[in-house]
């Protein structure tokens, strides 16, 4: 075990997999000479050279499509977007090609592709830079979507993603890059896709979260504990495939659930989780499932407004109070 920051864990996963499999390469804006817009890829150009760490011209649709082509021929590209926001420019390649080529070709084509970038809000980056893109992509059959909260999971899941024969979208967070945690050194350590983890045990309510919101949920749980409320936190880690078993097991124990995520509530992954809970654990529920999410408006830049729009621990706590009929 070594204590690593989240960004170092992501880097370690890429380096180990690039050493393990020479078909793996990395492409994106500023990943090479600049060492990554968020320094995730620091040192990788020196280590692997410009054949495998490639600074791309500014065309997300271009280098996504190019990587899909490279994946078809047998390479295993890792595409980094400066942020997931800019993947919107490549949406057609992701939706209509990466996700569907296997299906459309009658199984003749395989796209072993990893797309990764920071996701969600950062501090004050305004309306166009603050999207939680997992909700868009998790909607699409053919894609897998991961959003780890902890450095160890980031490493283990990214390694699984790189070894996976499907397009896997990997959601990081600018606000998580500095988070430290124990990370296994064993190059064979991986975390399987589609398995949630219980990051805190509790008995009164299940808080289901992923990515940055797991940390916010932990904050909320510590507050709730002071009031004598015991919250269990389920870190989904993987949004598609979704570990409904772990979610249902937790809710069966606590009988109440709050889903906490960044991103708009309308049609989001939180709604999907709520649906699973009401379908699979209806008889266990003592209250409707609630969601603590970003408000249903584009993100403001102004710091005060932004703080209202992004879900904070207080919003989780309020919703927990409500499912416990304490407000």
């Amino acid at each position, binding site marked *: 075990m070594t204590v690593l920051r989240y960004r170092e864990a992501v880097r370690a996963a890429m380096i180990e997999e690039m050493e393990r499999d020479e078909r793996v390469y990395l492409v994106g*804006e*500023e990943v090479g*000479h*600049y*060492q990554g*817009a968020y320094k995730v890829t620091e040192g990788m150009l020196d280590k692997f050279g410009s054949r495998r760490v490639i*600074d791309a*011209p*500014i*065309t997300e*649709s*271009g280098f996504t499509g190019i990587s899909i082509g490279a994946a078809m021929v047998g390479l295993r590209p890792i595409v980094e977007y400066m942020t997931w*926001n*800019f993947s*919107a*420019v490549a949406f057609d390649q992701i939706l209509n090609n990466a996700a569907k080529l296997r299906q459309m070709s009658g199984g003749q084509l395989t796209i072993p592709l990893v797309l990764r970038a920071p996701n969600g809000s950062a*501090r*004050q*980056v*305004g*309306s*166009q*830079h603050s999207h939680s893109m997992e909700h868009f992509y998790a909607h699409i059959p053919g894609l897998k979507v991961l959003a780890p909260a902890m450095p160890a999971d980031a490493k283990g899941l990214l390694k699984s993603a790189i070894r996976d024969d499907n397009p896997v979208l990997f959601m990081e967070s600018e606000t998580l890059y500095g988070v430290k945690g124990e990370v296994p050194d064993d190059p064979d350590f991986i975390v399987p896709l589609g398995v949630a983890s219980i990051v805190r045990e509790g008995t009164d309510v299940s808080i289901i979260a992923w990515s940055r919101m797991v940390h916010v949920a932990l904050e909320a749980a510590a507050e709730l504990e002071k009031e004598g409320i015991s919250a269990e936190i389920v870190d989904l880690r993987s949004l598609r495939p979704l570990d409904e078993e772990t979610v249902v097991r937790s809710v069966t124990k606590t009988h109440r659930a709050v889903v906490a995520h960044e991103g708009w509530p309308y049609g989001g992954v939180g709604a999907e989780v709520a649906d699973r809970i009401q379908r699979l654990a209806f008889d266990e529920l003592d*209250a*409707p499932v*609630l*969601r603590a999410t970003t*408000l*249903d*408006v*584009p*993100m*403001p*830049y*102004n*710091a*005060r*407004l932004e703080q*209202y*729009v992004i879900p904070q621990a207080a*919003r989780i706590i*309020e*919703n927990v109070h*409500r*499912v416990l*009929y304490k*407000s």
Partner: protein
Amino acid sequence: MSTATYSTDRPPNVSGASLEPQAAVARHPLDTCADDVIKVLRDDGSLDPAHDPKLAPSEVIALYRAMVRVRQLDERLVALQRQGRIGFHIGSLGEEAAVLGSVSATRPQDWVFPCYREFGAALWRGLPLQRYIDNMFGNANDTVKGRQMPDHYTYREGHFGSVSSPIGTQITQAVGFAWAAKLRRDELATLVYFGDGATSSSDFHSALNFAGVFKVPVVFFCRNNGWAISVPTERQTSSNTFACKGVAYGVPAVRVDGNDLFAVVKVARDAIARAARGEGATLIEAMTYRLSGHSTSDDPKAYRPDAWLDPWRRLDPIERLRRHLERTQGWTEAQDREIEVAVDAEVKACIAVSEKVAPPSLDSMFEDVYAEPPWHLVEQREQLKAGPRPKGHGGR
């Protein structure tokens, strides 16, 4: 336009190069002296009559003032960011002649579609300095109501479109705007700014193609400042110019010394005149240099030794223009000092005001999402005031 124009019926490599890709130009200041690059302002401050736009002395002084003001603002805003008083700034250090020269060629009816370094153009088109500084603070008086990052304003009154973060998106929009205006027989042109890096975006290519096919009255203004964050032009393209990309789309293109105010004014006026004559689009490649980091979030030392800037500092657009003023109008240091003091006072006063303005109201977040506020946003707004009360859940 001039003999050096990249018309569509001649090969792109007018500087005598072969069709083989070379290092893209404007990496070195000498490249701005290539035969096909329009220049007017000579080193000694005199003007080459061949392309002289014949600006009145007062016009030259007005543009000089505007350039100096923009530079002083840049310095002040970077300092404010370093002090943590604003979150971000993206400036135009070294690119002042390119921005001011081009926008000064626009007519009142024309529209500007900005990239993100053209606050000088917004101010030129009448954006009050106070409003610009309000945007830096994202306060209640900000024209975009605190919703976008600093330097991402919109100023409809001055025909200045929205600054959009995703690279290249404004280029197609500028074409659409100009094309629709043409259909409606509104006599106007659009001037759209973008960087060398943006020429890799799909929007750039779609925009040029459409503008070529439909003879759209648009001026594509590429600020080739040598860099896209840390990526130099030769890793952005293997074309030997950016202008030559116009040829493929049937859009005449011209390269201009972007640090030469007179040359920029000349080519921009010519391009707008072409548009006005119904002859369609022009692509201008203004060869300049980004003397600052990409933005306040960037430290260029990591990828660009400071010494590389020296030759470009010698081509500083403000210094060059000043030499002309000295030569032709007996410009003095006292006059510079006068401008400096005036701008400093004006900027300080605006900052003092903007910093005290309250943030936009919470209610304002729910405005402008749709043309009329829908019931669910009204409900959200009321809930936010009353404390969250998710509808449809008991307990009360």
